[in-house]
């Protein structure tokens, strides 16, 4: 048996992804250990979302392998055919462990906030409904929107919706959390409330991979920073190191442009 503490939470090896003829990831490898908070930076179109979405198979890589907690996802990657996961049951099981938070929240608009939180725990994880509700209420209180539990997503501000989406992700008891630009769709004055929730999660020691444009947040909160450029990792290291002494010129330009 491998030591669970040493098994990486997420391991990507040599991920390649193409859309038609156009290859957008040219062999990316990335390991997230238990408790890592990895910020993924890069300019628009560099492949950040694609990389993140390869972890939970919302995009299936054309080559390379993905393992979650040491379990490799079985892929059919034959040249000339679209790649696919061989076993959807395996994918679904692993997806339930790697919760995702989206830029545009993607709360289910026909369900109340509370119903959004218990939906997957009850129907995917088959948890007891009463327990799921009790837990969901606690999570909503934690992200500061307990009083919105019976409201529909359309009646919440963007910041509240994103906090609800984070609570929905937490309700799955995920072992890894994937964030794709969670604050990019928010008005500037609402960004802080969402980042605060994420800071708390990082402080708890949760394993998180965060695509973000919030440099300050990446610098303070992440344990490791990855800079993606044109589908390859250009820079990688502890934020204190890479922000102070970037080895790559592109990353230097990138951080000086943003600040």
């Amino acid at each position, binding site marked *: 048996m491998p030591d669970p503490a040493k098994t990486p939470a997420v391991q990507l090896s040599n991920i390649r992804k193409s859309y038609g003829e156009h290859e957008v990831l040219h062999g990316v490898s990335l390991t997230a250990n238990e408790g890592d908070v990895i910020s993924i930076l890069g300019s628009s179109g560099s492949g950040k979302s694609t990389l993140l979405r390869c972890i939970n198979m919302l995009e299936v890589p054309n080559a390379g392998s993905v393992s979650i907690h040491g379990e490799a996802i079985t892929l059919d990657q034959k040249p000339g055919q679209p790649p696919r996961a061989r076993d959807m049951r395996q994918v*679904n099981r692993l*997806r339930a462990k790697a919760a995702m938070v989206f830029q545009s929240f993607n709360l289910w*608009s026909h369900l109340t906030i509370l119903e959004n939180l218990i*939906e*997957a725990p009850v129907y995917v994880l088959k948890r007891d409904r009463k327990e799921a509700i009790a837990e969901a209420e606690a999570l909503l209180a934690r992200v500061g929107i307990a009083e919105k*539990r019976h409201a529909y997503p359309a009646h919440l501000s963007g910041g509240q919706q994103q906090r609800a989406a984070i609570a929905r992700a937490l309700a799955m008891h995920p072992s890894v959390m994937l964030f794709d630009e969670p604050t990019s769709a928010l008005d500037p004055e609402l960004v802080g409330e969402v980042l605060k929730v994420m800071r708390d999660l990082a402080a708890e020691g949760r394993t998180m991979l965060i695509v973000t444009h919030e440099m300050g947040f990446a610098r303070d909160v992440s344990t490791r920073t990855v800079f993606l450029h044109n589908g390859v990792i250009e820079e990688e290291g502890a934020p204190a190191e890479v922000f102070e002494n970037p080895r790559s010129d592109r990353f230097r330009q990138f951080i000086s442009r943003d600040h």
Partner: protein
Amino acid sequence: MVIDFPFLWESFTTLLNGVPLTLQLTALSVVTGAVLAVLLALMRVSNRWWLDLPAQAYIFVFRGTPLLVQIYIIYYGLSQFPELRHSILWPFLRQAYWCAALALALNTAAYSAEIIRGGLLSVPAGQIEAARATGMSGFLLMRRIIFPQALRQMLPGYSNEIILMVKSTALASTVTLMEVTGIAAKLISQSYRPIEVFICAGAIYLAINFIVVRAFAALEYALSPERRPAPASTADQPEKARA
């Protein structure tokens, strides 16, 4: 011309005898048509050409030809096939009632399939993706996330289709059925007073469709709590425990 009011009333009460058959034909064809329509719509959105193509062909044929022609083909045409005359379906297909119901059902299935497909495609891709990301897929995803939202989206279009179906049952009179229009035609041939009879027939269809419209409005309201304005106070209902 002068309207003969006693005759008008008499026509009205006579025509009411046709209402049960009109409603039966509508209900039977709408229910079976809806089942077929769901199948066709799922075939259309399956992304598999060998499912999509037959569904497309079916929809093209049944939307592209007059309902009257479809009724005639089923009523007069099917009896030309000896195989059918000897099959277990014949006791049904020899009756005008089942032929009319079948034609109406096959016809509404084609239109409804496209309404359902429109509803399915209207569900935001991000919400489907969010469901997949939790490990939902297949029937569960359909039942819990896609269908409930598609249903709300397609209600206005579908109520339109049912109104059309109520009126389409009038064509069943062409194959001897004595629903509202069939009785009207008979009354006219006996009395030569088409105006009174048709006014009554029109009023009856109008009344039925009024109920259809109200029922769908109520259903839409009941199914779309998220589209109503938020409660005036965003504060939660007072805790029951404190009462």
